[in-house]
């Protein structure tokens, strides 16, 4: 195993990686900007290196400084966390060129999945379902009808040159299709000077469901079930669950098999997540994240598997020590992202945390780098910490979440805790009945 790992990140995820490394007996090196000299991730590491001034581009994104920090400390591997350099294929390559192990996928796979168009083509070839469409322009109504019938209604007629919603029409049945085509064509012509349109399946109230995978370099790929991250605001996840209230074991096994087959063919390495929209029992690929995700703890809570430990092990060349049949899903877990933000306007609220008291007891986990007296710097993201709660079933989990939120004290900055305290009492949330539009609609009702 590695003797020493450099953690090229900050905040709660640097803490998370530091914890996993220490539990494996691996020494850690923290990097930090001058703004983070007193940060918890720096205090907890065995060594630390200041890599630059506060702006991330000069510190946490400063590739030469980070590679040099590995060299001067003798770190044999670098863990990128999430964000920052975690999906930078060039960084992974440079690290490798310096004889340092990048704890993550192969650079080619990072690059492939970073190109959204190429990624969609690639995963389709590998057997992963994507949003069905006409695969190119549709020139006459008869073709359109045939294609729409194959896709299934409702369908979206989109201007090929389109954007910003213009030249987009929904046809809910064949009787609406001709009008939709004509309108879209004329709007497209007027807006873009090009009347070519194409068809795509229209998802009305989809959920965001993603599948966690883990792969070693001996060709073994395991899936660890799904997470439901439908509760989003401006494409930012705020609440994640494992498992999804919308999936049963059969559906989980089915999509899990599709994903693991695809990634086995690809020769993927490390942890990764395939994100889907899910509607009426069907999955539609959004993108693949080639890194550890913020919401990985909910998967850990129901599987008992330490994802960061496994990630480090497979990066070192180790094989996954269990089979798909050994993975069991026990109970239910929910994560709330506690941000330093106004809970109504989401305006960031950096500053001094005067008092920080976390909930405890059975089934409660907090991942955070905050402490009483910590000053949240204004340069980075607003995540103070993650409250992760496990219960033997979703109802127990929700009740535990409610009581945990009532114990959580963060004084001095505004936080999103009051938002979650509202959410746990909402009937739709209690019932698990929500799509990716639910939270935006809820906030509109609340704020007006």
């Amino acid at each position, binding site marked *: 195993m590695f003797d020493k790992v450099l953690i090229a990140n900050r905040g709660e995820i640097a803490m998370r990686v530091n914890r996993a490394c220490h539990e494996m007996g691996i020494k850690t090196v923290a990097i930090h900007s*001058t703004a983070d000299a*007193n940060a918890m991730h720096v205090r907890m590491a065995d060594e630390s290196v200041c890599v630059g001034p506060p702006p991330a581009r000069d510190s946490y994104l400063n590739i030469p400084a980070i590679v040099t920090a590995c060299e001067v400390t003798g770190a044999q591997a670098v863990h990128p966390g999430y964000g920052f350099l975690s999906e930078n294929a060039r960084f992974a390559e440079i690290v490798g060129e310096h004889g340092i192990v990048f704890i993550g996928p192969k650079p080619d796979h990072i690059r492939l999945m970073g190109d959204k168009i190429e990624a969609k083509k690639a995963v389709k070839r590998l057997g992963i379902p994507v949003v069905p469409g006409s695969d190119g322009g549709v020139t006459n109504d008869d073709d359109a009808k045939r294609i729409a019938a194959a896709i299934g209604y409702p369908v979206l007629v989109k201007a090929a040159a389109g954007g910003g919603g213009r030249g987009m029409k929904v046809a809910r049945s064949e009787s609406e299709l001709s009008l939709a085509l004509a309108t879209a064509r004329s709007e497209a012509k007027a807006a873009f000077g090009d009347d070519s349109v194409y068809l795509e399946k229209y998802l009305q109230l989809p959920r965001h469901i993603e599948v966690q995978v883990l792969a070693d370099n001996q060709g073994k790929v395991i899936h660890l079930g799904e997470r439901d991250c439908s509760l989003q605001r401006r494409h930012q996840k705020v609440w994640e669950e494992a498992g999804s209230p919308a999936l049963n074991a059969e559906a989980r096994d089915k999509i899990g098999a599709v994903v693991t087959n695809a990634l086995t063919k690809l020769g993927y390495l490390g942890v990764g997540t395939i994100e889907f929209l899910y509607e009426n029992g069907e999955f539609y690929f959004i993108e693949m994240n080639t890194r550890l995700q913020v919401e990985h703890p909910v998967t850990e809570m129901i599987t008992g598997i330490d994802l960061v430990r496994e990630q480090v092990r497979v990066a070192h060349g180790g094989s996954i020590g269990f089979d798909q049949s050994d993975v069991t899903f026990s109970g239910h877990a929910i994560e709330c992202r506690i941000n330093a933000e106004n809970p109504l306007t989401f305006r960031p609220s950096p500053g001094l945390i005067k008092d920080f008291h976390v909930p405890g007891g059975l089934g409660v986990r907090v991942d955070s780098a905050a402490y009483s007296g910590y000053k949240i710097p204004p340069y980075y993201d607003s995540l103070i910490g993650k409250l992760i709660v496990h219960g033997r079933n979703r109802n127990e989990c929700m009740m535990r979440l409610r009581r945990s939120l009532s114990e959580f004290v963060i004084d001095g900055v505004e936080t999103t805790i009051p938002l979650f305290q509202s959410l746990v009492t909402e009937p739709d949330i209690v019932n698990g009945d929500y799509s990716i539009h639910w939270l935006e609609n809820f906030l509109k009702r609340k704020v007006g």
Partner: protein
Amino acid sequence: MSKEEKPDPLEGKMIRDLAAILEETGLSEIEIEKAGLRLRVARNIQMVAATVAAAPAAHTANAPSGAPKATDLSSHPGLVASPMVGTAYVASSPGANPFVKIGDMVTEGQTLLIIEAMKTMNQIPSPRSGRVTQIIISDGQPVEFGEPLMVVE
């Protein structure tokens, strides 16, 4: 770039207790020996104006490298701080004469030392003209961003 050898926690406890007694009594040294353990605790009362960094509240494992060094130079007007992470060299090659020595007069832009980062040798120029009054780093020493290198005043 701080590392720590951790003492046995119970011994660490004992050392801290003794340190407190030292402080309280104004003694400069206490030595104690029992049950196979010998401990000597001393305090250099002569040390003038040395800033001993207060342990941050939640500090347990690692003294943050950003904490003030034993002698805090960060606000010294003549400070030359490292502009990058790397390995500092005081001469152009092993055995060669150092770029500067204490007491040398230097002009703005004159090379003070070299920092190697990613196999590249970066010449670090003097930010001002003046006299080299302190050379803080030693040859081959790893330095972090912002770390004091020299004082030119």
